């Protein structure tokens, strides 16, 4: 087919800010089949899962404070958060023993509504204090083992009893796909919906043809073909479904942070019903070796961002929360004893937060091992009494309707059901 190109129409000011393309594409030429929504009979039977990874090793002991532990106050003379006394400079009491860091105040309503669950003294049992190894093991879902190259979420998606062809079945927010989604499933990495299209302001028919030609070039046998096709499929879906001026619902106010804005993208995808099943998102900066701050400073700021963003997201979703489960994790916790720089070194046991309408929330799960010297792990860390895979496996099974947990977490058979989810 010959094309007369008009120079004026084709030229693109690609660096200008984004406007959604409205030219319909011949999508059929690009992909063999594509469902915007999962077709009837193949609709995902479970919740949409949001997996949040806190990069750097969150200090769980200052996030969910064991107020009843004298060692907590002894070992953290400058960093400890005071026991709840009703004031802003103290913990927010949860159950008479544990208290929330005041910067996590936005979680309290959700806790009171029974839709926030906490698992303390949890994590990956591997003793490594290396960020990179710990994250790697956690995302592969095989602590101590690197022989499997897939991530636990990819294996979950691979083993569900249904199919979902949507290019947005699995989305990683960020420039690079999180390792938990790596594997023999299609996953889309994106930073924001607004910029996820080809060609800047250009809306010409010629750009559409250019896009189609790219589809052909990414069909000539290169191993980038699959990624190319997925990219084109994802941009087409977005064009046809997403509005450019999204307004959050129910008065939700997202923080201006990257994490908050990333959750905003996920909320849009959920409400657009494009077949999203799993979304992964990172929040970084948790490696607080120095001057982490007790009530003010780096760590409280991070906690504020975490809670305010997730609370806004939760509010924005409205009734979708009944079909959403959010889980947080971090590669390890931090040492009980504060160090000489007003911070904490790499530790072991940590906190996981879960939110969703299908949870038995309002409770801190797990056996609390205590902070006495003989109860600590290694060089003085909080011990782990709940393997993080117990938490994830229960979610996979009860909320994500996938019975194949043994394939999602191979080599792990000692599963302990906490009862934190219904289903």
């Amino acid at each position: 087919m010959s094309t007369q190109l008009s120079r004026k129409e084709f030229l693109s000011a690609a660096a200008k800010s984004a406007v959604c393309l409205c030219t319909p594409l011949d999508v059929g030429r690009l992909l063999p089949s594509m469902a915007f929504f999962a077709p009837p009979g193949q609709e995902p039977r479970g919740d949409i899962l949001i997996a949040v990874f806190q990069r750097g090793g969150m200090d769980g002991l200052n996030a969910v404070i064991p107020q009843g532990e004298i060692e907590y106050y002894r070992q953290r003379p400058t960093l400890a958060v005071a026991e709840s006394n009703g004031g802003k400079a103290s913990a927010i009491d949860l159950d008479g023993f544990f208290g929330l860091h005041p910067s996590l105040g936005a979680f309290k309503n959700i806790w009171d509504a029974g839709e926030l669950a906490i698992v303390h003294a949890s994590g990956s049992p591997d003793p490594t204090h290396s960020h990179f190894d710990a994250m790697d093991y956690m995302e592969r879902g095989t602590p101590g083992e690197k022989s499997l190259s897939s991530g636990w979420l990819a294996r979950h998606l691979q083993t569900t009893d249904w199919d979902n062809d949507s290019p947005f079945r699995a989305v990683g927010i960020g420039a690079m796909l999180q390792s938990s989604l790596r594997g023999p499933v299609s996953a889309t990495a994106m930073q924001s919906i607004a910029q996820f299209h080809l060609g800047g302001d250009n809306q010409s028919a010629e750009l559409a043809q250019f896009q189609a030609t790219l589809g052909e070039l990414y069909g000539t046998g290169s191993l980038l073909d699959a990624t190319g096709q997925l990219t084109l499929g994802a941009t087409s879906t977005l064009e046809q479904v997403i509005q450019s001026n999204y307004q959050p619902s129910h008065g939700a106010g997202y923080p201006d942070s990257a994490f908050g804005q990333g959750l905003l993208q996920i909320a849009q995808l959920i409400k657009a019903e494009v077949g999203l099943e799993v979304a992964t998102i990172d929040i970084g900066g948790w490696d607080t070796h120095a001057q982490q701050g007790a009530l003010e400073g780096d760590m409280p700021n991070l906690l504020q961002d975490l809670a305010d963003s997730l609370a806004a997201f939760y509010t924005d979703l409205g009734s979708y929360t009944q079909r959403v489960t959010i889980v947080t994790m971090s590669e390890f916790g931090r040492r009980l004893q504060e160090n000489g720089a007003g911070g904490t070194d790499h530790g072991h046991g940590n906190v996981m937060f879960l939110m969703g309408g299908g949870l038995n929330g309002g409770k801190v799960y797990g056996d609390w091992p205590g902070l006495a010297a003989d109860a600590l792990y290694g060089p003085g860390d909080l011990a782990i009494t709940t393997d993080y895979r117990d938490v994830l496996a229960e979610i996979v099974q009860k909320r994500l309707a996938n019975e194949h947990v043994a394939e999602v977490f191979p080599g792990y058979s000692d599963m302990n059901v906490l009862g934190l989810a219904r289903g």
Partner: protein
Amino acid sequence: MKTLNRREFLQLGGITAAMTALAACRPLAEGAAAPTQVSGEIAPLEYDGEWLLQRTLQRISFAPTPDEVAHAREIGIDNFIDEQLAPDSLDDSHMEAILAPYSTLQAEPAELIDSEQPYMPLAELTAATLLRGIYSRRQLYEMVVDFWSNHFNIYFRKGIVRAFKTADDRHVIRPHVLGKLQDLLLASAKSPAMLIYLDNAQSTADRPNENYARELLELHTLGVNGGYTQFDVQEMARAFTGWGISRLRGRRGQPGEFYFDDQNHDSGEKLILGATIPANGGIGEGEQIIAMLAEHPSTAEFISYKLAQRFVADEPPTSIVSAAAATFSASRGDIALTLGTILHSEEFKASLGTKLKRPLEVFLSALRSTGATLAEISTRGSGRNGNRRGGRAALADHLSLMGQPLFLWETPDGYPDYAAAWASTNGTLARWNYALAVAYDQGRSVSVDWAALAGDATDNTQALDALTQRLLGGRLPDEAQAIILNFVGAAPLETSLPAMGALILSSPFFQYR
């Protein structure tokens, strides 16, 4: 870490800031098999007798210029490699004028600490690094600078690091990248930027901070499987107490220089990797440890693996890693010799054309291979990110969108170097948008003289041949040629050339080196 506002996140102009937080820690399987990979089994360009030369040049430079191709033909590719491994012998004086406008490059940290334009050093070091990549004749040298910058990664935006990282680039990285590893390690251990970034500047005998000691072992020398223990980390942290910065915390000297503070040093005996470090060794303890690490066989393996990953393949054959490690050990850590072993090897030749370009290589190769002209530097002014109102600086936004804004990787492991990390939908889309930008920008940031690249071509078929020869170093497979020619049809060269250029730059064929 600072939070970002919504404007910064959503606008392309602020995308560098957004990338900072979004490009948070990437897990990397150090020293072990990388995750599922997209390997480069693409349809090769037609072999026309020059395949080895062209592909080698694409691997050891950001893209070869016609002059470099001619020179390599004249002296032979092996001699060309050796020439590039001795960069001091190559005249690069034209770079002086190109880099002259960027005054923070030569500034001392003390001048930058209280600067009224705190975002300028990052903007200028980024610009300088990119300009060197585009215009320097010492192409391999610049690639190795990039390698070691990543290896000794420092996040530019951690607090006051912004006043010190440029000096680290100037004094630690650039003078040592093809020399002895031990010299590079020692310079890095004394680098104020590194001491701040990994918290060693605040490590004292009373409360030692393990961060630097751990990364020195795990990321800089032995590698995570290199055979050290948590006890070694703690002992090393003790040894490096007192390694700090002058005029920080009341120390003497010129502000912002390395300063060994005996008062804060833990002078007791230490046991590290089986070796006893006697008490009261002062600064000599850390220096002795650096020497020990540089000579350690695990270091030879680990460094060789990383160099082979960069210059050969995501999962380099064990044979070349071993050969390089042998050279490394025999030469007591000579990086140029080790790299020479890699670049002259059969494994290197066998791997040509199969390594996925990272965004930096896409960015630079597009500009070099098209002979693009950059617009003027944007006017300086206020604005949190050093002004993105047009001019050449706007082009660097694409590097951020592709996922590799320079000096903004937050964690000490540096940007990953395997295809699965880069072959994402987001990254692919950004590469396509960059290709469109280069082809069609018309001088706002960059301009390409497509007619000059087409040379004597009188029709689209001849023009496509000329372009692929210039941009890819060969001809496209027939199927791909037909697809591109079908797109432009009978359009005149004036409109077909940029379109063909954009398609080539977007194609899978341009994504490999």
